């Protein structure tokens, strides 16, 4: 158990208590952390619990969707209906989704047997921006930049994106049971001829498929990601399947 538990009652208080995030374990839904803490594998000295911080707002203002960091994936599915929802519906099962948060999904590091972070693909494809606080204060940056940076020093406050104006496509590959993380997720958004490609589940970080965006050649996706082996699938299998998923997603855009 944590020696000290902090329970802020506003977003400002959460940001102040977080400071630069040193020696602090941020606790949102708990779906990843709580089993670790309960089993004694993780012993936080200080825990920042976000459930009273008011970071769970979900709103659509005009064409902009704003998702507070502790919005649960269940609430997200209730409150939105777009490319992101299509992936969110496949995260764990309904009971787990009532705990799991969007911010937690974004900040999850790879597990022992899987890559986690399934929502990375649609968030990248949607051009989502992440507002976070930490060293140097608040900043907003593209989700792929946030993911590539040092997430341990940042407290996610908000994730926002413009509602997709053009066409979208989703391809998911997973095992057939409720708790499987994705083997590979591919999300595409195209508007005014510009294509954005998000890929998650194949490696430790969700990435943007810039090569495919330029060439529209599915095989080029292997220039953008280096698939790994885990308990769900081998790297070799992912290398064979990922271009296929990208091809199917591109075909969906064509047909839409």
């Amino acid at each position: 158990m944590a020696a000290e538990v902090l329970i802020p009652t506003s977003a400002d208080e959460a940001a102040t208590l977080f400071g630069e995030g040193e020696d602090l374990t941020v606790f949102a839904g708990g779906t990843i952390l709580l089993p670790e803490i309960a089993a004694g594998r993780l012993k936080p000295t200080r825990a920042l619990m976000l459930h009273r911080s008011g970071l769970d707002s979900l709103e659509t203002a005009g064409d902009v969707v704003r998702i507070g960091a502790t919005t649960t994936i269940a609430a997200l599915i209730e409150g939105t209906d777009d490319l992101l929802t299509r992936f969110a519906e496949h995260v764990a099962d309904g009971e787990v989704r009532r705990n799991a948060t969007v911010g937690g999904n974004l900040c999850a590091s790879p597990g022992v047997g899987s890559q986690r972070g399934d929502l990375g693909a649609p968030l990248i494809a949607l051009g989502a921006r992440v507002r976070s606080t930490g060293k140097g204060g608040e900043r907003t940056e593209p989700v792929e930049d946030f993911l590539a940076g040092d997430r341990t020093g940042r407290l996610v406050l908000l994730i926002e994106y413009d509602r997709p104006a053009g066409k979208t496509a989703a391809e998911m590959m997973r095992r057939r049971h409720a708790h499987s993380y994705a083997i590979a997720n591919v999300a595409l958004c195209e508007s005014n001829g510009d294509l954005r490609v998000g890929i998650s589940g194949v490696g430790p970080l969700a990435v943007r498929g810039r090569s495919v965006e330029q060439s529209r050649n599915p095989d080029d996706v292997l220039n953008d990601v280096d698939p790994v082996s885990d308990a769900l699938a081998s790297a070799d299998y992912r290398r064979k399947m990922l271009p296929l998923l990208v091809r199917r997603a591109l075909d969906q855009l064509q047909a839409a």
Partner: protein
Amino acid sequence: MNLTVNGREHEITSAPLTPLLHVLREELEITSPKAGCQQGGCGTCTVLVDGEPRRSCLTAVATVDGASITTLEGLGEAESMSPLQTAFHEHYAAQCGFCTPGMVVAATALLERVGGPVDRDDILDALGGHYCRCTGYVKIVDAVMAASRTVPA
């Protein structure tokens, strides 16, 4: 912290990051939620939090401070079983019984949400995160379908 469990209020003394599962089983000695995998994967610890099914092993007690919790004990007694418990009994939907508390609690939430006959896909979706290693699921699904077609007492 406070919890209302099966209609009764309790003051809770466990630490804030204690799983709700352990609070129920160890502090309150309510033992129908089973400690199965204890990492959210098996579903036998599922309880209703303000009417919605959630995994008690994944839920830190501080995050549900003040909530109303329903466990299997709150649904019926041996002499006055709920329609769903009766259906589980009549359809032989329990074998070893370890998964049954979570199954019944989650299925109860499904029937309350739908409020009428449910089809097989609804059940598979609602119980998809609940593992049973004995029955092969057929009798469980049959029981939930049958219960959804009975008029609540």
